[in-house]
């Protein structure tokens, strides 16, 4: 594959999306990893994508639109006879679905926390598009709440004190919501990068083997140092391309309260 072919494929790559898992991009991404020129071009591409995406995401929705849509629907009510027919159909479908479920019931496969952590870490390293570049933690929380994303998190005091917020995005893993808050640790940032320290917050039920304790567990994953812990019903992963000592500046080795 030539450099031009790699560029042709990756110009449509969207960092921070499911494209990372799309086989159509896999080979070209692999090429980039081993070619300094392509790697630099790809970093510029990801940074430009993120910048433009954030502009599109800034389109604000008029107040009251949701309420108006819901109110409109109430005006257009379905006739009674139609509702009876629909209800009868729905009952029949429900019975069929229940029968299908009963006959094909299998134990649910556990979701592996290692896979979750690796996926999120990979997303941080490969590139992502921030939904907003807010640099105020309260504003970020408000933004996430407005997006109906996870916003009831508790940040370690060390992280609040020693890192500078750079924005956030809302994503998901295996159907579970994930709020990703991006920070700047204070180190010089690589060209095109807007952050170098990432906090992922999700539901405790994200994986059966998710950490149960509030004491962070440090582990190296794919070149990233990660710290994982759980407080209440939220599970946290803090990640950076650094060693444990560096990450320890942002999360305590004792329990996060």
């Amino acid at each position, binding site marked *: 594959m030539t450099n031009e072919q790699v560029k042709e494929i990756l110009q449509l790559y969207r960092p921070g999306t499911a494209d990372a898992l799309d086989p159509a991009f896999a080979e070209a991404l692999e090429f980039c990893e081993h070619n300094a020129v392509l790697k630099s071009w790809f970093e510029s591409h990801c940074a430009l994508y993120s910048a433009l995406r954030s502009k599109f995401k800034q389109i604000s*929705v008029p107040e009251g639109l949701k309420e108006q849509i819901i109110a409109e629907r109430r005006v257009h009510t379905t006739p009674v006879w139609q509702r009876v027919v629909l209800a009868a159909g729905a009952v029949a479908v429900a019975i069929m679905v229940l029968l299908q479920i009963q006959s094909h019931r299998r134990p649910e496969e556990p979701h592996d926390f290692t896979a979750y952590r690796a996926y999120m870490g990979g997303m941080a390293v490969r590139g992502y598009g921030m939904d907003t570049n807010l640099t105020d933690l309260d504003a970020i929380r408000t933004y996430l709440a407005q997006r109906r994303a996870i916003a009831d998190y508790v940040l370690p005091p060390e992280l609040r004190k020693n890192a500078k917020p750079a924005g956030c995005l809302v994503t998901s893993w295996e159907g579970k919501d994930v709020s990703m808050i991006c920070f700047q640790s204070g180190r010089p940032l690589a060209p095109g990068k807007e952050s170098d320290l990432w906090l992922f917050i999700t539901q405790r039920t994200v994986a059966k083997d998710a950490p149960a304790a509030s004491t962070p567990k440090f582990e190296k994953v794919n070149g990233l140092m990660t710290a994982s812990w759980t407080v209440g019903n939220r599970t946290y992963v803090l990640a950076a391309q650094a060693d444990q000592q560096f990450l320890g500046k942002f999360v305590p080795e004792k329990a996060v309260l």
Partner: protein
Amino acid sequence: MAAGVEFESVVARFYEPLYQFAFSLSRAEADACDLTQQTFYVWATKGHQLRDPTKVKTWLFTTLHRAFLESRRRQVRFPHYELDEVPLDLPTLSPASVNQLDSSQVLHALGQVDEIYQAPVSLFYLEDCSYKEIAEILAIPIGTVKSRMARGIAQLQEILTRGEREGHRERHND
């Protein structure tokens, strides 16, 4: 009652991204509101026909896009273009210069992109849909989605770069 709750939950989940998509296409708040409301009206009356619940998002975006096209009364099918003539060396637009723009300037630039490319470009930047989903929304093959996106992105970046250069020139002359 349950249907009402389900409807409200679908509205809560999708009205924002749908409005953003509608606004990026129409660039007018009233039109975008109309398109979003029209989409949910169609959902309220026909949504029960959708059997696969994982397709709700694609269904809604497809419906909105169709409503937009109908509103423009476009009856001529768009020709399909292939990827071969798309320039690979895109204009040298920097993330820093984009960060200095506001959202309306970027959308204004999108409005100058050939209309056929506008929806693919919006979906490229706005939504986390897979290329397969985008192909379903726009009712065109994946190859055509990619070629339209590539051309549209090139045009958008060229327009923004031109705007940036003109801005520099004006500041210089002042």
